[in-house]
């Protein structure tokens, strides 16, 4: 009874001034409208206390529904845009969901066994929010397993916002933008930063060209912007990059190597360039703001914010109040070890007084028993002046089981000369063990990027 009410998005939004909004191409969600307006209509009252699968159709509707449902619903399952219909029933079952919020501009989902199916519609309609008990809503995020149904990861608003400092009242209000979708962890972090930071947010519309998004973000006066290194490589190739003049450029989701940090620093000399280590399961581990790749070994000693790091079987493990609590579903594996650490699966290596990310445990290429991290080889290739980006992958081989192969995208205007392949191979041979040197180098016009903005490493 004496416990304080749990934090809710409504509290974070409190006092949202006029003019704050989430913008997409041709549409905007005003943030000053809550709680006197709703996207959920008369169903808002009936959604109280329920476990709600949120598949609202686009990011603006998702944002509106999140603001309205947090603190009111018992559980929100945030579906990513590419959730396949065949997984919906497993999601409903594992989340014990009894309601669905769907895109009111389309047909309701079929065959879903829940008590309440509620449409989400914009623009917001005037509607006094019915009183409801304030709940500590569980936020369920989905991560794609390589096969089978998605894994469901349990967070709370407190764990999701643990790394976000509440804005000082007199501080400048950042205008955030992100290449991510807010229905995944990386984008959700930026959505919450925009809400808590007192500013606005510009999002990329589905299918919007990078150039159009950059122009729109520049026009909106974006000051803070985040994306993966793969997103940022696309920006570097785009003339519209100069439409932005950000204070802060943030990279996460993939390894930020020295080449990309230096290129961004040259593009935006005024900006603070930082990279964050975060994942859906491990939460935001830490942020690195000294402009260099990797992170200081001293991070293992510091305990600020209750964060502890350790190395388990070569990979980084994190214990903090920002990690997810557990996986949902019958037979789900344990998320934390007995000491409360979440293994990230990201392999790290000490060089001098810094640790560097060298790849994913699952991504290792086995060359006749010797282990190769693709990202380690990519970092060497990307350091070549003529190279824009690279993807290192396994190539099946009858002698060693696998070999290292590299697909390389050259910078604009660099010719695909055979001598360039020799140069790239020679650079790798100089810095890497022989079995790590790409046996085959192929020039390609571009590299595929996944919906979450990372280099596509499978297929």
């Amino acid at each position, binding site marked *: 009874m004496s416990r304080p009410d749990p934090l809710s998005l409504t509290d974070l939004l409190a006092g949202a001034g006029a003019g704050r909004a989430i913008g997409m191409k041709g549409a905007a969600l005003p943030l000053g409208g809550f709680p006197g307006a709703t996207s959920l209509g008369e169903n808002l009252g009936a959604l109280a206390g329920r476990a709600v699968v949120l598949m609202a159709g686009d990011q603006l509707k998702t944002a509106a529904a999140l603001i309205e449902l947090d603190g009111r619903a018992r559980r929100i399952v945030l579906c990513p845009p590419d959730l396949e219909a065949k997984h919906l029933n497993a999601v409903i079952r594992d989340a014990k969901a009894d309601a669905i919020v769907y895109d009111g501009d389309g047909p309701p989902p079929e065959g879903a066994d829940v008590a309440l199916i509620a449409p989400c519609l914009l623009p917001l309609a005037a509607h006094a929010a019915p009183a409801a008990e304030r709940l500590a809503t569980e936020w369920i995020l989905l991560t794609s397993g390589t096969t089978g149904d998605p894994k469901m990861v349990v967070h709370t608003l407190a764990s999701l916002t643990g790394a976000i400092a509440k804005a000082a009242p007199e501080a400048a209000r950042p205008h955030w933008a992100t290449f991510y979708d807010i229905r995944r962890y990386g984008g959700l972090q930026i959505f919450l930063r925009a809400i808590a930071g007192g500013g606005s947010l510009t999002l990329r519309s589905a299918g919007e060209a990078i150039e159009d998004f950059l122009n729109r973000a520049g026009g909106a006066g974006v000051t803070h912007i985040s994306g993966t290194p793969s997103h940022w490589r696309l920006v570097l190739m785009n003339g519209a990059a100069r439409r932005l003049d950000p204070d802060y450029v943030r990279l996460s989701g993939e390894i930020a190597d020295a080449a990309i940090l230096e290129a961004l620093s040259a593009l935006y000399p005024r900006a603070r360039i930082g990279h964050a280590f975060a994942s859906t399961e491990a939460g935001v581990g830490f942020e690195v703001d000294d402009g260099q790749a990797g992170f200081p070994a001293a991070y293992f000693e510091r305990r600020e914010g209750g964060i502890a790091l350790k190395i388990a079987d070569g990979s980084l493990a994190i214990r903090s109040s920002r990690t997810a609590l557990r996986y949902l579903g019958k037979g789900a594996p344990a998320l934390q070890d007995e000491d409360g650490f979440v293994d990230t699966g990201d392999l790290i290596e000490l060089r001098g007084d810094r640790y560097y990310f060298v790849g994913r445990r699952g991504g290792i290429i086995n*060359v*006749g028993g010797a282990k190769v991290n693709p990202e380690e080889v990519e970092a060497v290739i990307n350091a070549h002046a003529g190279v824009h980006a690279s993807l290192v992958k396994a190539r099946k*081989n*009858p*002698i*060693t089981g696998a*070999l290292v192969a590299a697909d390389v995208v050259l910078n604009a205007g660099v010719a695909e000369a055979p001598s360039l392949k020799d140069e790239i191979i020679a650079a790798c041979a100089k810095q890497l063990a*022989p079995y790590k040197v790409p*046996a*085959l180098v192929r020039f390609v016009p571009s590299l595929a990027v996944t919906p979450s903005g990372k280099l596509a490493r499978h297929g």
Partner: protein
Amino acid sequence: MTIRLTILSQIQQVAGEQKKTLAPLADDLSLLDSGLDSLCFAILVARLEDMTGVDPFTAAGDAKFPTTIGELIAFYEHVAA
């Protein structure tokens, strides 16, 4: 370029990249004594597959694997034929 010349030039190329000293290449030279290690052979097979479109090691099934330079060349000539 004939398959023989392609194979011999690729052997030189891979040996150069991998900093291996090659024995004088003759048909009766044992592959084990050629100076190439298994990584070199792996690279050689992958490069030859890209150049000729065939990988006789995978295609051969239970065929006898080559043990000399001459057998290696015949191995590729047989599959390519």
